[in-house]
């Protein structure tokens, strides 16, 4: 039997959707497991067969997270750090990327290469020297080591934004210069507005990076009142005694802000990635 083009199209669609659904299920399953475990009692956590829908549901796990650790404080601390880091990265990354993308000066390529080479240095190699530096500055147990470096810009983000800015036609700059604009005015009124998708990526990458950062707050902070969300969640983990229910309840709550950010920034984000992919 020969299939008509429409039948072939229908079969292709069905197979395509079935594959997508299967992949989606695989991707969603860990999230569902997190939700289910957050609603389980310790006895239900490892029950066999697994309880896909916990019965009864332990809603008190969510309130217990706040009783066991100052969870609200941890969220507030992290939000403050996220905001400071985003401000720092946006400030430094855009200026440096603009310099590398639009300005001509001797040694530009060498400097750019030098900056890119810092991407190759594993963070752990610089861990102790950085700690000594910040310690000598008296910054340990403050937020300074956790956000001041953002004001020097991340190499990766500078590279990404520079690539994006290079895709903007130079004709626009020239038109602005003819109209009497200065370099900073071109940067502010022409390049920045056109770079919005790339800047949104900077915001999202910085947000997620700071939100999930465990090592730096661990190294630099001593006072539990200054701790961040990732450190706070780790209080439910021990080498041999993990409180899975509270850990999952806390993780679920901690994952809401990044998810919200993604939903709100989705259009810009995908636009930025696709344009970056095409022209970068």
């Amino acid at each position, binding site marked *: 039997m020969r299939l008509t083009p429409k039948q072939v199209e229908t079969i292709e669609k069905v197979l395509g959707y079935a594959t997508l659904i299967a992949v989606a299920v695989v991707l969603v399953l860990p999230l569902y497991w997190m939700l289910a475990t957050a609603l389980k009692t*310790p006895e239900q956590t*490892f029950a066999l067969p697994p309880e896909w829908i916990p019965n009864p549901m332990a809603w008190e796990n969510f309130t217990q997270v706040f009783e066991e650790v100052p969870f609200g404080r941890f969220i507030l601390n992290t939000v403050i750090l996220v905001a400071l880091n985003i401000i720092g990265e946006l400030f430094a990354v855009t200026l440096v990327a603009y310099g590398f993308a639009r300005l001509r000066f001797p040694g530009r390529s060498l400097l750019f290469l030098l900056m890119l080479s810092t991407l190759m240095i594993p963070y752990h190699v610089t861990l102790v020297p950085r700690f000594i530096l910040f310690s000598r500055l008296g910054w340990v147990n403050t937020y300074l080591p956790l956000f001041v470096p953002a004001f020097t810009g991340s190499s990766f983000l500078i590279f990404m934004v520079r690539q994006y800015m290079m895709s903007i036609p130079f004709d626009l700059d020239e038109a602005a210069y003819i109209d009497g604009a200065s370099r900073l005015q071109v940067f502010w009124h022409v390049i920045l507005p056109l770079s919005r998708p790339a800047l949104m990526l900077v915001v999202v990458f910085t947000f997620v990076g700071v939100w999930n950062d465990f090592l730096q707050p661990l190294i630099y902070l*001593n006072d539990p009142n200054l701790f961040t969300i990732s450190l706070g969640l780790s209080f*439910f*983990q021990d080498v*041999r*005694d993990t409180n899975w229910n509270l850990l999952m309840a806390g993780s679920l709550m901690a994952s809401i802000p990044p998810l919200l950010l993604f939903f709100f920034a989705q259009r810009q984000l995908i636009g930025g990635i696709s344009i970056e992919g095409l022209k970068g």
Partner: protein
Amino acid sequence: MKKAFVVVVMLFLLIPFLGAAAQDQPVTIINWWATERGRDTAATRELHFQLARAFEAANPGTQVAISLYPSRGFATRVLTAIAAGEGPDVWYHYYAPDIAAQGFLEDLTPYLEQSDVDEGWFESAARRGVYQGQTYGAPRDAVAGFIAYNKDIFDAAGLPYPEDGWTVDEFRQTALALTDLDNEVYGVGGIEGGEGCLMWSPFSFNLGAELTNEDGRTVAGYMDSPESIEAMRWCLNLVTEDQVSTPASMGEQFGEQTFMSGDVGMQTVSDWEIPALMASDINFGVVAPPRLDEEAEVIPWADSYMYYMWSGSDNKDAAWKLIEYLTGSEAQRMAAEAGVWAPNGPAIWEELGWNEDPIKSVSYNQLVNSTLTPNYLRSQFFFDCVYPALGDVRTRWIEGGERDLETMMADATAQAQTCLDDGYSALPAGS
């Protein structure tokens, strides 16, 4: 008279200066870093602050600055600070050999010679802080390993509850009788087979095997001995041939949550897990670990967190005072009454009647007996050399399906011995 008046006036004039001098008395600040466990974090945190305030009250002029960190990453935190020359004066953690070997730990032996605090410690707990004859750690607490059993599962299977004095073979037969795979009931939980079973479980010394010699430098002739091979086979068989163990995905060696699922007949646990079991609705009992055979005595497996002093501390005497206080009777009683840690010595156990408690006495009876130094505390290179070699054996047996255990253990022994030899030969002479 005139002279006396002048002296009195001068003394009065000195009073404000004396007061100022008293106010300027230097305050010693001790940095105490600690970790919180995965549960009862609020109670654990509160206990730390109570202990610090009680110490300060007893030691005017000394303040304790506590920093509590999550267990995950704590070692990184401590070692980074030490590398930067800013380590904590006092902290507690698990095993010491590798850190002691790096020279980061103050040798507490001279302090202990001037103190009698260690006379109150269980020998099994104190032993864990000793490396190459020197004491580097003081026990924060003391726990023993034993077997918890689910009474309902035993009743359903029509089996009597296990009793002290049973053997490892009886343990295995019981596990076989309890296992009902059709109904997803497992005889034992959390035995993944292999290295954990031999190293940090109640079975560790009761399978008749030693993986290393006393100083931890030699595995040849130990790890590949017939006793070690049979011990390894016993552990691995529970998983593959007997199929009495829970799936590896469910198991942690001391995973009380596996046992709390209600699907596991027996589970190796320690005092650290008992509070969670007591809070659950599991109908359980506990029993001493099984011994090798009818002729053998049970060799306890004990564990402790250890307090350490940084060798670079500027306040060593005050730091020692804090350690002495924390490992002494007053602090131990406070921790026990708060239900956070089990005391590091028999006196508080007996004072609180724990030695007669149906659950806690099982642990107490283990702790008061002498034991051996765990294989993994004998060498600073154990976790680099011996542990991965044994892990390879487990992988080859369980995942690769190989069954020539003699050859696998011989391979592992050769690999581990070469690694140990390389490690020690790279050390400065005399180390």
